[in-house]
């Protein structure tokens, strides 16, 4: 599915978010390799079409529960690169004020973002709860929840889809099938690697989409969210892509066959989209200009984050409870 409802201008905007995501990721990876990071982190490479395409499909009042490879969604929804880098660096100015690590807990309800925990996939039922709050109040809003191919082996996947279907919730679950769960290839953690096929067991639509084609992702997610908002119930979407780096920053991913990486590298989501934009008349110079602006924005964020204060240890017990 590559038709799109995006205008030319919107396509450039989407491209910009993807470039920003890529620029952020490349800078992050470089910093961590230099030892300038704090704690571990997760490369986003290869996931840009999913996180941006899906994030872009959200309506302003929708809510989203991104995971550890969804930086693009965080950015599109309004987490600035400044705050994001400060979070990664454990600074007081980060989203969690240094309490949680990398993209974890990067929630901001004013932006319609639900933060996640490590334990997979707990965002999935929590996001359904948000969707049920919309049903409860009769609001025309929908929720998009992300999970991974590995996490889909967890019981919460089943419990949540069963409830979402039963309750006709305005809920879309997007499984990022990036061929691996840490070191384990998808066919070694499940026999049915066509993950959208599970939808039938819940009586809801299941859609499989090319996760490297940002317009295809956008179209599939938008259609599902639109239907959900109109009372049409949940959808399970599988977006197929490839995790192009290790599981986390420390992981060299020697277990990934080079041929598999090469195959997917040839379908890099940014390049794919660039070709398409160029084919429709956008100049490569314009695209490179966007890239440079994104890199500058990222650089500014890094400087700001590294210059940001550490949290004050005297505050360490603050906020365990809501007042």
């Amino acid at each position, binding site marked *: 599915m590559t038709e799109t409802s995006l205008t030319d201008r919107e396509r450039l905007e989407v491209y910009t978010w993807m470039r920003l995501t890529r620029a952020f990721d490349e800078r992050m990876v470089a910093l961590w390799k230099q030892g300038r990071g704090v704690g571990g982190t997760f490369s986003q490479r290869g996931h840009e079409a999913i996180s941006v395409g899906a994030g872009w499909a959200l309506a302003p009042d929708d*809510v989203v529960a991104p995971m550890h490879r969804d930086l693009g969604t965080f950015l599109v929804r309004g987490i600035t690169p400044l705050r994001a880098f400060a979070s990664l660096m454990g600074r007081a100015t980060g*989203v*969690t004020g240094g*309490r*949680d690590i990398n993209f*974890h*807990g*990067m*929630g*901001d*309800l004013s932006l319609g973002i*639900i*933060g996640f*925990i*490590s*334990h997979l996939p*707990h965002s*999935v*039922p*929590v*996001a*359904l*709860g*948000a*969707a*049920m*709050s*919309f*049903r*409860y109040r009769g609001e025309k809003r929908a929720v998009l929840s992300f999970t991974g191919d590995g996490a889909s082996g967890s*019981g*919460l996947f089943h*419990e*949540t889809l*069963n*409830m979402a279907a*039963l309750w006709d919730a305005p809920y879309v679950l997007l499984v990022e099938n990036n061929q691996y769960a840490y070191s384990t290839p998808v066919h070694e953690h499940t026999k049915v690697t066509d993950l959208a096929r599970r939808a039938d067991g819940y009586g809801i639509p299941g859609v499989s989409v090319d996760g490297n084609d940002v317009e295809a992702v956008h179209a599939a997610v938008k259609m599902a969210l639109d239907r959900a908002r109109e009372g049409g119930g949940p959808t399970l979407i599988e977006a197929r892509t490839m995790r192009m780096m290790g599981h986390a920053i420390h992981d060299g991913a020697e277990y990934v066959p080079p041929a598999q990486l090469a195959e997917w590298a040839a379908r890099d989501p940014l390049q794919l989209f660039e070709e398409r934009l160029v084919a429709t008349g956008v100049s490569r110079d314009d695209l490179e200009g966007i890239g440079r602006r994104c890199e500058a924005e990222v650089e500014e964020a890094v400087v700001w984050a590294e210059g940001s204060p550490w949290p004050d240890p005297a505050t360490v017990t603050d*906020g*365990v*409870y*809501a*007042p």
Partner: protein
Amino acid sequence: MAGHAETFGFSGGPEGDGSRVMTYVAAISEALREEMRRDPSVLVMGEDIGNDFGGAFKVTKGFAAEFGPLRVLNTPLAELGFTGVASGMALMGLRPVVEMQFADFISSAFDSIVQYAATTHYRWGAAVPMVIRAPSDGGLRSGPFHSQNPEAWFVHTPGLKVVAPATPADAKGLLTAAIRDDNPVIYFESKPLYRNLKGYVPEGEHVVPIGKAHLARSGKNLSIVTYGAELHQALAAAERLADEGIECDVLDLRSLKPLDEEAVLATARKTGKVLVVHAANRLAGVGAEVAAMIADRAFEWLDAPVRRLGGLDTPVPFSPPLEDAYRPDAAKIAAMARELARY
């Protein structure tokens, strides 16, 4: 042999204008109903509360008709998932009250409670106002999986509040407070008290603040610190001991987290001898924290070791002679207190 070994009866409670005598379980229902009427963001969810079944203990009987299926949300058998759903609702400003069919099944929702709900406010500042109602405790010949008192797991976990009312009035007042609290609160209600205990309960708004213990009986020789159904065993024991000239303070903790440390220390410092009692198994139970806290902060005042009496460190056995051996009762409390008084 098969009967229920304990008797309760009447808990007293705040007599006066608008106070009526009602059962412990009716007081729970009343708090829920009143809060749902007061605040449209309050809802109940759990297994078998649809079609006006009212749940295994009929606590929400009649609610479906009054509040409709979205506010009385029947769930599939999926504690982990539906507790996560409740967290999501809470994040969006609703106030779900989740019913575990039995407290024993709270372990099925454990991950969602201790990892998601408990940590969210600390991590990114989002409040998770939800209550988990957990019908706990035994003595009812219900076996290892319908008799548990799993409060210690949650008292240890940062970010949760934990309460355990022992009277109808507190059942109402603490549930009201729990629903209005902006944090996840685990509400351990006591099955053996449900229909066996009556007491005065104020009509209309009645809030018992979380974190305040109640001195249920006053005496100078010894302190018994307890909560839940064991309060009534402790009171019965204190009655017997009074006949023997041993006068007991009986402190009902009511809140297990936060613990009313001042009240615990006050009674410990007053009598110098403390027996901590709970139905949950003893080892590393809530009584360990209470005893350790006393041993730390009331050391100078102690005239005897801080003793603990809990359930045995076994699964809760089913057969009456075994469960009776397992479970603290007035006679066991009195025996231990008597020995402590003589120390």
